[in-house]
């Protein structure tokens, strides 16, 4: 069984909602669509207060190359363009739309019919992907068209599709692979065409045998695509770890997957590409797992972007009484929500309620240098040392210890027997080092 070599952990899986078929979440009364739902510059609004918009209509245009379109997820009237709080409680520019009916743009094909053939040239496909506002749906929300535009002098030969879903609790990708298998494969085929590669590997961890079986069977009709079962290990869904697990190639420090000839996309992204290219449907809804050990009805919901998180929880039986924390994303890399009325965005892969017992951090003790964090770090770093140096603000040493390679997977904090908040400090140190590198670069350019 394939897997990445260095480090990693195996937290309890709790894939409670894996048997729940994807349901459509009812339309909310109003949606809040942040203009920065992706990595890169926030979009510029192109509607005004009082405008009537349809489902799928462009309401924000990209602000530069590394940016993305924002589409209306509902039909109705724009009631406000102002700063709205996100899950962190910080305000960012957003468009609020009051829902009136459900009127879609006429160009969108709403039928369930499967469209296999695509005669469009690659430029046209890429243009459709760009205009559909597709970003990496695994959670990182990196604009897809940027990854699919290969710069001069670079070459890709393998496309890797991430169906790993290594985070505990989350089952959105799993359900998508079971229910929309054919669509995903067509989407992957389209991505291959755009990149001009002849090989695509879909990596799936072997705790999803049904998805592996279904996709392997169907992929027999697609000569370019093969399914690779992977050993269950967190954080296999991370780009660099997945590349190593599937192709055996190691992405050097500070380099991109493209430098070893690989492009990685999520299965959710592949499905969005299918819908954008074959059905003309931009990215305005996504699958969100709503789950938790004490939640009444764990579900996988197809949610219009901008729907308040609180309404998702209400739909699934309301906040359980013993809830201590609600997490946006998976429990390992996701963040506790400070504002439960914040909207679902392109990067919201799951909403997890954690019981009070599991939500409280244990009292930290002294580091005994047991090096458990070192052995689980998948990037081969020394978390205990980096964390300490970050605390002491010794940023030059942090840079020398490759703090910028840290992918913030949290394996070190998870495994620390002294309950030290290792990642908390590493994250601060990494941000500061990145800031310093950026300043140095701009000074050199001058």
């Amino acid at each position, binding site marked *: 069984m394939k897997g990445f070599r260095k480090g990693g952990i195996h937290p309890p899986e709790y894939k409670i909602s894996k048997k729940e078929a994807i349901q459509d979440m009812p339309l909310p009364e109003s949606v809040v669509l942040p203009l920065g739902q992706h990595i890169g510059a926030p979009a510029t609004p192109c509607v005004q207060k009082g405008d009537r918009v349809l489902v799928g209509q462009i309401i924000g245009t990209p602000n530069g190359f590394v940016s993305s379109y924002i589409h209306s997820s509902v039909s109705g009237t724009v009631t406000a363009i*102002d*700063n709205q*709080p996100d*899950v*962190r*409680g*910080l*305000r960012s520019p957003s468009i609020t739309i009051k829902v009136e009916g459900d009127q879609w743009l006429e160009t969108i094909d709403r039928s369930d019919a499967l469209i296999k053939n695509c005669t469009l040239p690659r430029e046209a496909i890429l243009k459709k992907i760009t205009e559909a506002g597709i970003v990496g749906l695994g959670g990182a929300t990196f604009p897809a068209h940027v990854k699919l535009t290969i710069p001069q002098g670079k070459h890709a030969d393998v496309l890797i599709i991430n169906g790993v879903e290594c985070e505990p609790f989350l089952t959105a990708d799993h359900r998508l692979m079971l229910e929309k298998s054919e669509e995903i494969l067509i989407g992957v085929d389209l991505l291959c065409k755009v990149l001009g590669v002849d090989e695509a590997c879909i990596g799936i961890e072997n705790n999803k045998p049904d998805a592996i079986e279904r996709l392997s069977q169907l992929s027999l009709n697609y000569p370019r695509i093969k399914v690779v079962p992977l050993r269950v290990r967190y954080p296999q869904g991370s780009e660099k770890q997945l590349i190593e697990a599937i192709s055996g190639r190691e992405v050097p420090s500070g380099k991109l997957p493209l430098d070893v000839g690989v492009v990685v996309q999520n299965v959710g992204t592949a499905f969005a590409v299918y819908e954008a290219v074959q059905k003309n449907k931009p990215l305005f809804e996504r699958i969100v797992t709503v789950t938790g050990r004490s939640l009444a009805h764990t579900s996988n919901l197809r949610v219009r972007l901008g729907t308040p998180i609180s309404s998702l929880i209400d739909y699934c039986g309301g906040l359980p009484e013993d809830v201590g924390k609600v997490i946006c994303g998976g429990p390992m890399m996701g*963040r*506790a929500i*400070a*504002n439960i009325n914040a909207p679902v965005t392109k990067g919201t892969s799951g909403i997890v309620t954690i019981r009070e017992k599991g*939500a*409280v*951090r244990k009292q930290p003790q002294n580091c005994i240098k047991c090096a458990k964090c070192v052995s689980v770090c998948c990037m081969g770093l020394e978390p205990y040392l980096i964390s300490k140096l970050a*605390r002491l603000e010794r940023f030059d040493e942090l840079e020398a210890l490759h703090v910028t390679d840290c992918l913030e997977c949290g394996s070190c904090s998870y495994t620390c027997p002294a309950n030290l*908040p290792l990642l*908390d*400090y590493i*994250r*601060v140190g990494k*941000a500061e080092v990145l800031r310093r590198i950026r300043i140095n670069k701009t000074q050199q350019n001058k």
Partner: protein
Amino acid sequence: MIAVLILCAIGAVAAVLLYVIAQKFRVEEDPRIDDVEKMLPGANCGGCGFPGCRGLADQLVKSEDISSLYCSVGGGDTMKRIAEYLGKTAAEKEPMIAVVRCNGSCDKRPHTNVYNGAPSCKVEAALYGGETGCSYGCLGNGDCVVACKFGAITINPETRLPEVDEEKCTACGSCVTACPKGIIELRKKGIKGRRIYVGCMNQDKGAIARKACLAACIGCGKCAKTCPFEAITLQNNLAYIDAEKCRLCRKCVVECPTGGIREVNFPPRKPAETTSSTGA
């Protein structure tokens, strides 16, 4: 016996060698640097921008013009003494003090969630907006307390806000750089320690700011209109009092609808003149 003699011989040779080398590679250092260093407070706080007091002393002796150098810990008197000793003219600066621009005590700023991560403002600020609805206010984890080398800042357990001890604060600026929210500012200490400042950093619109904190600046601009000296400017829904222009008339303090403007060390106000409310 022989061993002792050999040892003595080695010792003698080494001593001669050391003396010769020390003479050859002697570093000529201005003896005044030592004297100036002794005059400085010796806190090594780095508030002057140099690594410790010796760094500043070195610079003070070497530079022709020392008007840009200042030790805020020693203050004007120390600088004057050093300048006299060196025969230069010292910069004259008004004594400064750190002020905390947040009014969000527990009773005024309700908590909306609980933070239970690493006890550091920097860590918390990197994660999210904080435990209250105000994402600009004090996080209360005390990074400033740790940063202060003079023990001048303490967190008041009741309000959960930092408080600056006027006697101990030397205006070195360590807390200003430590605060990730940029709440602490160095302001003029003022005559008799009297000063007026806006105790808020919230740049949200009025209604939102008010909802998050009862004592927030709501950007209404009343203070700016009232100020007879044009010392108050309004930017991003937040008022700011220019300490250079402020003449401490206290009109803005009365005018502020949320009580967000703070006055320090003023004598208590005269009770408001009793208006004839009994009516005729």
